[in-house]
């Protein structure tokens, strides 16, 4: 399956949906700082991998898929929930990339400059996540050739 950018998808998102994610991100970053200050960096560090975007994006995916079906006159559907499940499947692959990101920062930060460490770690996150996504997709196609 081809990976594509669909810029028209941005038009379907309401301003408050952007605001909610901004708020989630801002609050989580502040809380992570406060927890590290109060309980130390070893505890606060756990929250660097807090699922801040995922609940909002999965809810949005479900809402938009439901909306599409309702526009087509189908009101009773589980399509939205299944689309959100696919989003969760992607997030699971991304979270393995997140483990790689944290490992790379931990190993590089003491010897490298900060910007390079974060850049390399982000690239490793993307590469590892994409690789895992691809492998899982290929495996799924072998097991379920008709649905692939």
């Amino acid at each position: 399956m081809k990976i594509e950018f669909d810029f028209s998808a941005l038009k379907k998102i309401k301003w408050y949906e952007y605001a909610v994610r901004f708020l989630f991100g801002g609050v989580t970053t502040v809380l992570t700082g406060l927890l590290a200050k109060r309980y130390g960096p070893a505890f606060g560090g756990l929250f660097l991998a807090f699922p801040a975007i995922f609940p909002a994006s999965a809810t949005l995916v479900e809402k938009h898929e439901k909306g599409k079906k309702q526009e087509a006159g189908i009101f009773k559907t589980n399509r939205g929930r299944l689309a959100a499940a696919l989003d969760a499947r992607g997030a699971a692959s991304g979270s393995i990339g997140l483990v790689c990101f944290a490992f790379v920062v931990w190993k590089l930060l003491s010897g490298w400059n900060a910007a390079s460490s974060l850049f390399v770690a982000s690239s490793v996150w993307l590469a590892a996540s994409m690789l895992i996504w691809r492998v899982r997709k290929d495996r799924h196609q072998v097991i379920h050739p008709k649905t692939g």
Partner: protein
Amino acid sequence: MQFLFRFIVGGFIVSLFAVIGDMLKPKSFAGLFGAAPSIALATLSLTILSNGKVYADLEARSMIGGAIAFFIYACFCMRLLAKGRLSAAKATLSGLTVWLACALGIWLLVRGR
């Protein structure tokens, strides 16, 4: 003032990754961006500037535990959504307790060694 700055930087980076995820197709690929290191990038850059690299290094090490908890959380949500009857909001928000329990469990396990 420092908290306001953290809030703006965190909100901006999280929104940026979320927007990239919104534009991508297919859905399972876009889902990768639900686990983007957005909070980590915002927090680590600010921490390096204010507390230094050694402090940020400790945070990054602990983040490995948080990321493993994220994997368990995402699998839990996927199961709930694919097999259960819960809406995305209920499944993903109730699942946060799973993330918290796993993250704390891993932290206690590593701390005890």
